């Protein structure tokens, strides 16, 4: 039967040829499989490496150093008139209370320079903490209470061991004098590391110990929500139209090439476009989730469209024929049969596009998102910044304490990313099937 063999040669059984070559083929098979496994392992390794790197640098940011001081809520400072007027209470000089409390713990420190150094151990945010305490409970006035007060970032770094106590004084940000105070406070149990709630509840700040990620997180949330709202329907719709309904001609070829090309446009150019068109022409406010979402939507659209078209292409035509054959309209055919089958691919495109949008900094440079905005945004048009920008800004800050906060912010971003992907992944799994 082996007619292809040279005439005259004894007929050779296929199985012999197969068996002869099998070893080689299996070696190939094994290599191939190993390559695949290697690739996956390598990929996962990269993820693990990045995570380990980030977590290793950032986990300390979830704790914050506090110093305990016996604060006397002196009525003559807080409420000289005794009227308990909230406005007076708000404006009172709480820093003075802290200074007084410090004097009590360190009665020997009297020189002006030294008291200044002593004072700088406590964060500038501590006084607002005292104010909040008093406003919440005016009965405190006149009493003395041990209060845990937020330490300054340098002290925080020292306590966490990011500043080496053994270094010569000249190379240390925390001088010997302060170091002595810290050690004394530590021995008295007046220094403690506590969970850093500020990081999760506050907006950014120039003071590392007061800086929080909440503002950027909310900004990212609003931005991403809008981006998804814009780009998913538009991307899927456009893919659907171009792949399934548009006539196939040079014009649609042009559109296809053009969309592929948009994917290669540097993201900063989308920023330029946003600046020129959305801000310049349509007057969309700068530095808001709205403008960021518009720009990021344009940026992610090509990703979603390309992935969606690939997914649509891989649905076998017989499914469409079957639906059309029972009298479904083309749109029904798509919505009922083709879209569900293409959904995993579309969701993948969306996941990747959104991930990219979540981590993108460059185009936001152009539209005013690289900004110092303290307040936590409350809507789509309130000034805000986003996580990657916050990370970018913190990474560029000189204060040592921002290093761990940068990593912590990255962890928050990754958590956000994972949460976001999880939903999509669950959805995707529902749609996945082989046929």
């Amino acid at each position, binding site marked *: 039967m082996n007619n292809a063999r040279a005439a005259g040669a004894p007929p050779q059984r296929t199985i012999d040829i197969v068996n002869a070559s099998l070893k080689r083929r299996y070696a190939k098979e094994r290599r191939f499989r190993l390559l695949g496994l290697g690739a996956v392992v390598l990929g996962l390794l990269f993820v693990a490496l990045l995570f380990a790197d980030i977590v290793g640098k950032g986990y300390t940011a979830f704790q914050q150093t506090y110093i305990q001081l016996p604060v006397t809520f002196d009525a003559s400072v807080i409420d000289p008139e005794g009227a308990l007027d909230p406005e007076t209470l708000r404006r009172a000089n709480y820093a003075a209370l802290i200074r007084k409390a410090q004097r009590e713990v360190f009665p020997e420190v009297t020189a002006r320079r030294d008291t200044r150094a002593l004072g700088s151990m406590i964060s500038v945010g501590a006084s607002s903490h005292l104010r909040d305490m008093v406003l919440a409970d005016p009965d405190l006035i006149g009493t003395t209470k041990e209060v845990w007060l937020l330490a300054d970032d340098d002290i925080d770094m020292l306590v966490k061991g990011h500043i080496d106590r053994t270094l010569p004084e000249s190379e240390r940000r925390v001088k010997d004098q302060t170091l002595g105070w810290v050690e004394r406070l530590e021995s008295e149990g007046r220094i403690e590391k506590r969970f850093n709630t500020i990081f999760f509840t506050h907006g950014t700040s120039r003071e590392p110990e007061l800086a929080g990620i909440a503002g950027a997180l909310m900004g990212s949330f609003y931005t991403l929500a809008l981006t998804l709202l814009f780009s998913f329907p538009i991307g899927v719709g456009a893919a659907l139209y171009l792949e399934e309904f548009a006539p196939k001609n040079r014009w649609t070829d042009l559109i296809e090439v053009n969309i592929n090309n948009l994917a290669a446009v540097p993201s900063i150019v989308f920023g330029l476009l946003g600046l020129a068109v959305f801000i310049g022409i349509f007057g969309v406010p700068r530095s808001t989730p709205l403008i960021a979402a518009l720009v990021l939507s344009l940026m992610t659209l090509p990703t979603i469209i390309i992935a969606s078209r690939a997914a649509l292409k891989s649905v076998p035509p*017989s499914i469409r024929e079957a639906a059309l054959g*029972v*009298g479904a309209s083309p749109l029904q055919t798509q919505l009922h049969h083709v879209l569900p089958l293409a959904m995993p691919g579309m969701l993948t495109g969306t996941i990747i596009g959104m991930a990219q949008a979540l981590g993108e900094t460059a185009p936001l440079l152009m539209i005013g998102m690289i900004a110092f905005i303290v307040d936590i945004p409350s809507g789509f048009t309130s000034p805000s910044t986003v996580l990657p920008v916050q990370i970018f800004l913190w990474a560029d800050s000189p204060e040592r304490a921002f290093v761990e906060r940068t990593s912590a912010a990255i962890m928050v971003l990754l958590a956000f990313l994972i949460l976001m992907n999880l939903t999509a992944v669950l959805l995707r799994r529902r749609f996945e099937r082989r046929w």
Partner: protein
Amino acid sequence: MSTTVDEMSRRTGAMSSAELSGERESRATVGDVTVANPRMVCRDVDVWYGAKQAIKGVSLDIGKNEVVSMIGPSGCGKSTFLRCLNRMNDTIDGCRVTGSIQLDGQDIYDKGLDPVPLRAQVGMVFQKPNPFPKSIYENVAYGARIHGLTNNKAELDELVSASLQKAGLWNEVKDRLDQPGTGLSGGQQQRLCIARTIAVSPEVILMDEPCSALDPIATAIIEELIDELRANYSIAIVTHSMQQAARVSQRTAYFHLGDLIEVGETNQIFTNPKHRLTEDYITGRFG
């Protein structure tokens, strides 16, 4: 087969290789292509796949309450022609149809015509079973759902079970209606597709080898179904079994390399074909 075709062309003496590749005038059809009360009227239908012509000037009527069977060697264009009748060819890139095809006097290739209701009216069973990757129930219920044929779940259940029963599949699947239609055996899939098609009660039914994967008993059930449907509807059926054509159809059309060679009463075609090609084919003397 190589010898087959060669010999045949020698005998018919009219087919060069140019003909085989479709560059030739279409041949006049032997027999009367018209019927007294037509539902579908096709005139001079040409179909091209890109540059390749698959159907050449075919004219044929499909009458009320009749079953027309189409026979012919593999690749002669039966499926292609069938697919023209409910515009399923629209979905194939590069497929062009010219000529006129009318349903109840209305040109179905008319610009303004909506192919959707057309396809609801002219149902089709495909040559390769193509169940949806959904449950068996949903496969059958789909048409009724989109056309709103039933008003409630009970009616829909009723319709699904009736359709499956008619297609002879009910007993095999009644316990697993919620399982995917793609997990059925070949013949079961084919019957599922038949059930799906008849569930929307189309008025014309196109069947492309509906029994090719079926055993004789299942085939008999389908043939019975066809006979029953004929009372109200028109049916065009492609089949390779001449016995089946003889059993179910009133008229038979014989296709050859894109031409409609001969049409006539089924009896006449099988007992007394007029064209030599037809005769060769049905007597098995083809090769």
